[in-house]
């Protein structure tokens, strides 16, 4: 294996680059940022649009990024990354990484145009979407990556609606459809797999994209200590998946022989607790359909 690959805690530096921030205790997103920066190191230029991670990390005079960092306009994290990379190149800077962390909203909704532009140009940037399945920083509103049945403040569950009535936008495949050189899905419940993917992205000569599931205890309604457990279970029950896209091929990194019960995963979270069996079977059917396609068309 490549000497630059970081695949476990032993290889990971002890130094912290995102420290003293004000994220909720047990926040999954902050772990996604922390681990990625530990792989990428001090010579990183980090850009974040408005989201929980920028809100908790840039509170002058409490500055939590130890690396260089910038808050980008919400719709334009990828464009700011492109600009940083172009500027660094023109100034002859070497041995640095340009990395962005945007939430699900900042990626799949308002930021998708700029992201598409950057991938299309092939700019050498690492774009990490930490997916907490709603607009958390503004108080848990529905985003394009909110799953079916999730209660958010703009998709309330009531007599008439089960919460969100749409499935997650398929960001990973939308990104892959650009012919990007490297894209991956990950989960902080499988941190070693995530580290490996960040290492791979770091070596990529053009745009790379990682979509990491990062549960939000506050918005999802579970005790903070369970963040890793929930993130792992999302994969184990089949509602999330670990995959890569490179050399124009999709690969499933993890193929469970059987899924853990979806219902258990859902019932651990306040946002799903209102769901009845009918809704749960809608979710299961959608999962099965997705896996059928993945198993048929992707390598594993």
């Amino acid at each position, binding site marked *: 294996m490549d000497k630059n690959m970081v695949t476990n805690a032993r290889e990971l530096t*002890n130094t912290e680059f995102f420290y003293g921030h004000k994220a909720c205790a047990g926040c999954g997103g902050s772990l996604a940022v922390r681990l990625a920066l530990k792989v990428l190191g001090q010579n990183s230029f980090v850009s974040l649009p408005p989201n929980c991670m920028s809100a908790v990390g840039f509170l002058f005079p409490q500055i939590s990024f130890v690396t260089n960092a910038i808050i980008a306009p919400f719709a334009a994290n990828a464009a700011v990354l492109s600009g940083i990379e172009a500027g660094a190149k023109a100034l002859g800077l070497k041995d640095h990484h340009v990395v962005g962390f945007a939430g699900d909203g900042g990626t799949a909704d308002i930021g998708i145009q700029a992201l598409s532009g950057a991938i299309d140009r092939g700019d050498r940037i690492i774009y990490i979407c930490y997916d907490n399945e709603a607009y958390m920083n503004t108080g848990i509103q529905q985003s394009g990556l909110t799953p079916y049945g999730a209660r958010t403040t703009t998709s309330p569950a009531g007599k008439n609606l089960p919460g969100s009535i749409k499935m997650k936008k398929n960001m990973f495949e939308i990104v892959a459809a650009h012919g990007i050189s490297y894209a991956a899905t990950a989960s902080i419940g499988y941190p070693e797999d995530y580290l490996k993917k960040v290492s791979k992205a770091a070596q990529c000569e053009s745009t790379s994209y990682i979509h990491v599931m990062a549960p939000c205890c506050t918005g999802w309604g579970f005790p903070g200590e369970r963040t890793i457990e929930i993130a792992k279970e999302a994969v184990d029950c089949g509602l999330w998946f670990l995959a890569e896209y490179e050399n124009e091929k999709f690969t499933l990194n993890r193929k469970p022989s059987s899924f853990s019960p979806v219902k258990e995963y859902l019932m651990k979270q306040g946002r799903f607790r209102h769901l009845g069996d009918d809704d749960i079977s809608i979710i299961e059917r959608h999962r099965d359909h997705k896996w059928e396609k993945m198993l048929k068309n992707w390598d594993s």
Partner: protein
Amino acid sequence: MDRPKVVKYKEPERAEDYPVGATFKAGHLVQTNSGWRTFRPIIDQDKCIKCLRCFLVCPDGAIDKSGESLEIDYDFCKGCGVCAHECKVGAIRMVKEGADEDGR
């Protein structure tokens, strides 16, 4: 332990002394997060097998692996309990703040 420390920050007395631009030095911490904790994680070093899982998954990076044994930076540990929940051998206990080590 090798973790960032809080520094003293003196507010500018004159507007002219503010930075040019909404810009400030990286990694500048002026307050701890220890006040957030209701429970405090305590590592039982005898039980610990140094698998580093807690170091890996702490969202706040408050567990340091540079020494002989793992150390928690109580200035920045928020007491979320992730480490204790994830420790496979049960080497981390969450003890109520203000109570003694045995939780009394």
